[in-house]
């Protein structure tokens, strides 16, 4: 199934306005953004649980809502499965009755067959007569999925499907959920405020901020090319920095930052050409900063570009990696709270280079690892 979704919504609430528009061609869309950005409200409008003030909702060519023509399909007939935050399983019904709830009106035999099929496919065998309170968090999630999928919906909506779970379980279930979504082939919209979840689950990510869409892109594109500084901040990207443009060309941008001249690659899909001396935001992923090894001679301009010199002022052990906070040897106040760059190195590198006692380093950043953020 590759359902095309067209969503355009305006909904005014007393202290919040949702005004969004996005289109997805099949697969899983992840609505990503901070809490209170309007993601759940979008799902409720799509499911018909909330009436938008304006807009249009089309699922696979079927108009579910259109303010212009007054068309409005009631939630009962939208053929949309909804997995609620916290799952909203019926506490007075067994697992089998929860899953079969949406199959009312079908012949009893067909209903029983479908319930059995769903229970088997979601590996809930043996639990059919249990009540929701007797299930683990992961089992509840699967029952909620099964209940939503049993009537064979045209679209599945999932609101923070992992937030009710404990941290260790979240990762396992995130991957399990991804498998279920791809196996069932259902078009789906997942709401999450966790970027890793959005990236793991979504083929396309729609970034929400304060009731608006700030970017909608395939997940890989979003990862490397956030459309603006605020998108990068919502994504939680470290090392978002501010410099000044020296020269911008379609393929390269030269900029000045902290007394250094840095060379960055311009975005291949949407080159950005700010005038000289314009302020410019960019980010550097901590895992893409290279330390220059002292045992192999001085930095070599053929291998190393954007070479800088600095001191490790703080470091934190994250188990498999170390996070180093580096302050450049340059005049002026550092770019972030007492340091200029966060750099991530694998444990092994930290040990081999003996960073715990050797704090003064040269490092380099490939021009392709400096990502310019359009204003």
């Amino acid at each position: 199934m590759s359902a095309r979704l067209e969503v355009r919504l305006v909904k005014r609430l007393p202290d919040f306005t949702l005004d969004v528009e996005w289109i997805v061609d099949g697969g899983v869309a992840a609505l990503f953004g901070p809490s209170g950005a309007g993601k759940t409200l979008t799902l409720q409008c799509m499911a018909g649980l909330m009436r938008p003030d304006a807009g249009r909702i089309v699922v696979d060519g079927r108009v579910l809502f259109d303010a212009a023509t007054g068309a409005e399909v009631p939630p009962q007939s939208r053929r949309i499965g909804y997995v609620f935050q916290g799952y909203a399983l019926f506490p007075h019904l067994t697992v089998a009755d929860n899953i079969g709830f949406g199959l009312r009106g079908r012949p009893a035999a067909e209903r029983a067959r479908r319930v059995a099929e769903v229970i088997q496919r979601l590996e809930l065998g043996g639990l059919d007569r249990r009540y929701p309170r007797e299930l683990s968090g992961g089992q509840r999630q699967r029952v909620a999925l099964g209940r939503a999928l049993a009537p064979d919906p045209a679209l599945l909506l999932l609101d923070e499907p992992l937030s009710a779970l404990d941290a260790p379980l979240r990762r396992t279930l995130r991957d399990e959920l991804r498998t279920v979504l791809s196996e069932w082939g259902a078009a789906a919209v997942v709401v999450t405020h966790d970027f890793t979840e959005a990236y793991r689950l979504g083929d396309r990510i729609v970034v929400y901020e304060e009731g608006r869409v700030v970017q909608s892109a395939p997940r890989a594109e979003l990862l490397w090319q956030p459309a603006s500084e605020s998108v990068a901040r919502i994504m939680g990207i470290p090392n978002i920095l501010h410099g000044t443009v020296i020269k911008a060309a379609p393929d390269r941008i030269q900029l000045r930052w902290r007394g250094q001249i840095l060379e960055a690659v311009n975005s291949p899909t949407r080159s950005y050409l700010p005038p000289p001396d314009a302020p410019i935001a960019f980010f550097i992923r901590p895992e893409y900063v290279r330390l220059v090894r002292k045992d192999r001679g001085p930095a070599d301009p053929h291998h190393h570009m954007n070479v800088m010199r600095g001191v490790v002022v703080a470091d934190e052990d994250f188990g498999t990696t170390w996070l180093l906070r580096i302050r450049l040897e340059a005049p002026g106040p550092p770019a972030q709270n007492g340091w200029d760059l966060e750099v991530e190195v694998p444990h092994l590198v930290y040990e081999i280079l003996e960073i715990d006692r050797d704090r003064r380093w040269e490092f380099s950043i490939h021009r392709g690892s400096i990502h310019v953020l359009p204003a």
Partner: protein
Amino acid sequence: MSPETFDALSLSVRVAVLATLANALVGIPLAYLLARRRFRGRGLVDLLVTLPLVLPPTVTGYYLIVLLGRRGWLGAPLYAATGWSIAFTWYAAVVAATIMALPLLVRTARAAIDSVDRDLERAAYTLGRSEWRTALEVTLPLARNGILAGLVLAFARALGEFGATLMLAGNIPGRTTTVPLAIYSAVQTGEDQTALVLVAMLTVLSCVVLVVANRLGARAA
């Protein structure tokens, strides 16, 4: 047991049972609407239903006479058309008990319905249920214990109703004299034995009701 005592007891039970049934029919839908719908006049309905809880019962009774008495707003046309008036019949005792008990049921049931997670209802809508079917299959079953506790309280209130009943139905032995009224009459006329028997009966019944209501309340929580 004297025939008067028996009459009072059987009338009281009849009145309380019918008043509880009327409460279930009117009060449960009312509690649902107040909990789940936003409509014009909702505040007014809420106020009117709750008022008998705080007004002196005689005041509520007075309003019932104004409404239903032979010269009342509804009573006068009824009397003109049929020559019958509800005042001073045992039906009046049922009406008085119903109105006095209604706030207890509506408030308890409404709190129980309010505590049902709205996402459960939304889930039922997306799974094809109408609002009506959702209320019957999801909301009311989940609010069941609170609603039953409210009905038990309403029954107890109806059984003990005195002031409003006296105003609208009077105190006619054998016709409108319920147990609370019979106790009052017995004390007034010095029939201590009769009063004691009736008081004991009401006390025991009330204790039973309280225990049942508490059990239901505990299960609801």
